C-alpha cells in the first residue's frame, strides 16, 4: 500500500456554523440527532412555498452554508403547525429550530424586506407597547412597512374583510386594549432582553 490517499476535498464541511447553531439556537442542541430521513419535509404543509425543506436546511447548516440558510425562505414560510415536531423519529424539535433561525436572520439583518419579519416587528411592537396584540394596529403597521402607497393599496384590498369584522363586532373602533401595568411588563421584557444578550 504505497498509493497516496487523495487530497482532502477542497470543499469540506465547515462545522463552525453548525456548532454555533447547536449552542445558540433554541432546540439546536438536538439537531445532531437528525438522520436526514426527510419525514419533516414530507410532512410540511407549506413545503411547496419553501426554497428547501427542513431536512435540506439542516444539512445546509451542517455544511456551514450560513448565508444560504439565513436567507432561505424556509424560515419564513413555516406556519408553526408542529407536524414535523411530532413526527420526527429522532425527537428533533424542528419547528422550534426553524423559528430560532428566523430570529437569528431577523437580528443579523438577513431579512430587511421579508414580510414575516416586518409582521413580527409590528407584532412585537404591539405586545411591548400595550401588553396585547391589537390586530388592527399590527396589520396596519405591517401594511405600511411596505411604504405609503403599498400600505394604502393593501389596506384597500382588505377593507371588505375589515368592515365585515367591524360589523360582526370582532374589530373595535377606538383606543387599543392595553394592560394596566404596561410599564411593569416593559421593564420585565427589557430585563429579559438584557439577560439574553448577557448570556447569549
Amino acid at each position, binding site marked *: 500500500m504505497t498509493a497516496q490517499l487523495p487530497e482532502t476535498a477542497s470543499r469540506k464541511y465547515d462545522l463552525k456554523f453548525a456548532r454555533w447553531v447547536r449552542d445558540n439556537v433554541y432546540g439546536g442542541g438536538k439537531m445532531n440527532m437528525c438522520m436526514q430521513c426527510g419525514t419533516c419535509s414530507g410532512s410540511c404543509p407549506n413545503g411547496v412555498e419553501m426554497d428547501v425543506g427542513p431536512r435540506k436546511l439542516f444539512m445546509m447548516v451542517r455544511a456551514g452554508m450560513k448565508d444560504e440558510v439565513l436567507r432561505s425562505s424556509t424560515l419564513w414560510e413555516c406556519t408553526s403547525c408542529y407536524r414535523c415536531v411530532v413526527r420526527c423519529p429522532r425527537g428533533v424539535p424542528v419547528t422550534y429550530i426553524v423559528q430560532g433561525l428566523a430570529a437569528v436572520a431577523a437580528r443579523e439583518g438577513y431579512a430587511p424586506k421579508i414580510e414575516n419579519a416586518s409582521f413580527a416587528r409590528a*407584532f412585537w411592537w404591539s405586545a411591548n407597547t400595550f401588553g396585547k396584540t391589537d390586530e388592527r394596529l399590527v396589520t396596519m403597521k405591517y401594511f405600511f412597512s411596505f411604504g405609503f402607497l403599498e400600505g394604502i393599496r393593501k389596506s384597500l384590498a382588505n377593507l371588505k374583510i375589515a368592515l365585515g369584522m367591524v360589523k360582526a363586532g370582532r374589530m373595535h373602533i377606538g383606543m387599543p386594549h392595553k394592560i394596566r401595568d404596561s410599564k411593569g411588563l416593559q421593564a420585565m*421584557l427589557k430585563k429579559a432582553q438584557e439577560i439574553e444578550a448577557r448570556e447569549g
Partner: protein
Amino acid sequence: MSEKKTYTYYPGCSSEATGMHLDASFRAVMPELEREIVDIDDWNCCGASVGLIVGGVLPQTVLNGRNLAKAQEKENRDVITACAACYLNTHGNNEKIKQSAKLRATVNEALEAGGLSYTDDLQVHHAMEVLVNDIGMDKIKARSTNPLKGLKVAGWVGCQTVRPFAATDEGGNYDTFEDPEFLDDITEACGAEATEFTPKTNCCGGSVAVMKPEKTLHLMKTILDAAVESGADVVSTPCPLCQTNLEMYQDAINKKYGTDFNIPVVFPTQLMAVAFGLDAKKGAALHQNTIKAGKLEKMAK
C-alpha cells in the same frame, strides 16, 4: 367527576377581537357544565408564533411567565385557555419553567423588574383537554337538551390545539396528534352528525395566512373542498385563528380558484351553546360569525 371545579382563565388577545365569539360561547357553556372560570387579572399577550422572532426566546418566555405569576394569585392550581396559540405558549413555557430551576431563576430575575415572581407549579390546560379529561362527553350529552338533529358538522381540529402537546403526559394525553377524535365526539354529544372529514389536523397557514394569504390559500382550499365533499352544513374548529382565516378568506379563494365556497365556520362551544338551549346571540354569539350559520341559528331556542 361531578363536583364543581374552578379554573383560572386566560382569555388571550383574540378574545377581545377576532375570537370574541369563542370567548363568549366558552364563558356561556362552562357554568352549564358545572365549571367556574375566573380570569387572570391584567393578563398579557402570549407572543403567539412570531413574537420570539423579534423579541427573543427568553422575552417570549417572560411574557408567559408574567401571566403565570398573575395566575398564581388565584386559589386554583389549574389554568385554562381556549386559544390554540395561547395554550401552546403558556403550557409550553410553563413546563419549561417547571422542569428547569435555572430557567425559573432567570425568568424570575426578569419578572422582578416589574415586581412579580412565579414560584408555583400551576398546570395549564387547553379547553378541549378539560372537556375530554375533566368534564367528559357524557356530561355534554346529558346537558344537550336541544340536540342538533340533522346538522352535519366537519370537525377541523387544526394544528396547535393538539400539536405538540395533546399526546403527552404534561398535555393530559387527551387525544392523538394526527387523528384526534374529540371534536367529532363533541359534535355527536351535541346531537349533531360528524361527517367523514379527512384533513382534520391540516394547517390553515396560521399567521402566514394573515400576512401573505396568497401563499396559503391552497391550504385552506383543501380544507374547504373536503368539508363540502363530506356534505357538512358547517365546519367546527376549536382554534380562533383557524376560524377567522377559514371564514374571511373564502372570498379570496373563490376569486383565485373559481369556486363558490360559502360555508359557515363555528366553534364547538357555539354548537354546545345551542345544544344546551342557550340564546343564539347571548350564549352562542352566532351573530359574530361573518358567514352566518343559518341552519344552526334556526335550531337555537
